[in-house]
């Protein structure tokens, strides 16, 4: 049994002193490019729903109440802080902040909800006509996500049945 190596081990541990961070007592800065919680700036948002289309976890839900009002809701539960929404936003309305202290006892605390007014022409009352039908489709509104049950609807309302889209699976516990 090599006793000398154990002594050396003990001395190495003692020489390092006490390396523990005093974390909750002292704040801990993060690196420059750290991606924390995304913050949505409602003043700059134009309601294009590019972030909702690109979120890999389907965390951003969009509901078109009528032609002029679009509700955008960010649920923070499954967000992986990948930053795709911030990359895609044409107006740079989403910033990945440096916040990581997001623990909570109610998951509803992470929601951010924006009610947006999609501008209509003040003379004729219609939205601006876009050049291609694809762009026109975006303006008329085609997203009808279920905000109350926080579910992303995979089909358009034209074909929506009354039952929910995905069945709930029952767990057998005996």
């Amino acid at each position: 049994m090599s006793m000398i190596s154990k002594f050396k081990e003990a001395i190495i541990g003692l020489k390092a002193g006490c390396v523990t961070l005093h974390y909750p007592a002292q704040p801990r800065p993060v690196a420059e490019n750290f991606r924390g919680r995304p913050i949505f700036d409602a003043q700059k948002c134009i309601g294009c729903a590019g972030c909702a289309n690109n979120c890999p976890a389907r965390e951003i839900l969009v509901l078109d109440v009528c032609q002029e009002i679009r509700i955008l809701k960010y649920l923070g539960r499954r967000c992986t802080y990948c930053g795709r929404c911030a990359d895609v936003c044409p107006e740079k309305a989403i910033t990945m902040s440096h916040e990581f202290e997001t623990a909570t006892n109610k998951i509803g605390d992470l929601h951010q909800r924006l009610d947006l007014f999609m501008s209509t022409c003040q003379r004729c009352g219609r939205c601006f006509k876009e050049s291609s039908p694809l762009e026109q489709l975006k303006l008329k509104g085609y997203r009808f996500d279920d905000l109350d049950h926080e579910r992303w609807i995979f089909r358009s309302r034209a074909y929506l049945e009354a039952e929910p889209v995905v069945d709930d699976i029952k767990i057998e516990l005996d």
Partner: protein
Amino acid sequence: MLKNLCQKMFGRSLWVYHANSGGCNGCDIEVLNVLTPYYDVERFGIKLVGSPRHADVMLCQGPALRATARALRYAYEAMPAPKLVFAIGGCACGGGIWHDTYAVLGPVETVIPVNFYIPGCPPRPEAIIYGVAVAVGLVDKKVAPVEFKQLPLPIPRYHPADLTGRDEMVVYEKAEKI
């Protein structure tokens, strides 16, 4: 009186059981980081134990899969009261990126009741320590829901059929409010 003393001591010495029900092990590694000397969580009295019967807190991470839902439920019921459940990571809080795949039943709260959520993918060790400190009562939580309305509803809506011409001006006759 002894009961009161015992209940006050609950926050000072939490024994933790770590249950990974199907995650990618990213949050596992962050939880193990929290137990290393750099972030040392044992100074709060937290100890890792190997049996749910000895534990007060279950750290769940990974979504509830079809295969592991039953085991997770048994482990929860094996813990003696009073008990807490922490859901760590995006998968445990809301199902993760794989919330709509064939093997995932949903977040951990479909199987067991959850007391505290620590979102992140994976959450930093500081975020996990912050979550534990919020649970024990050392600090206050920092997030709250945000709601923004660009215009107060109801907004006036203008329809072309309601326009009438009068002299050289265009006047809106009827305003339909939504």
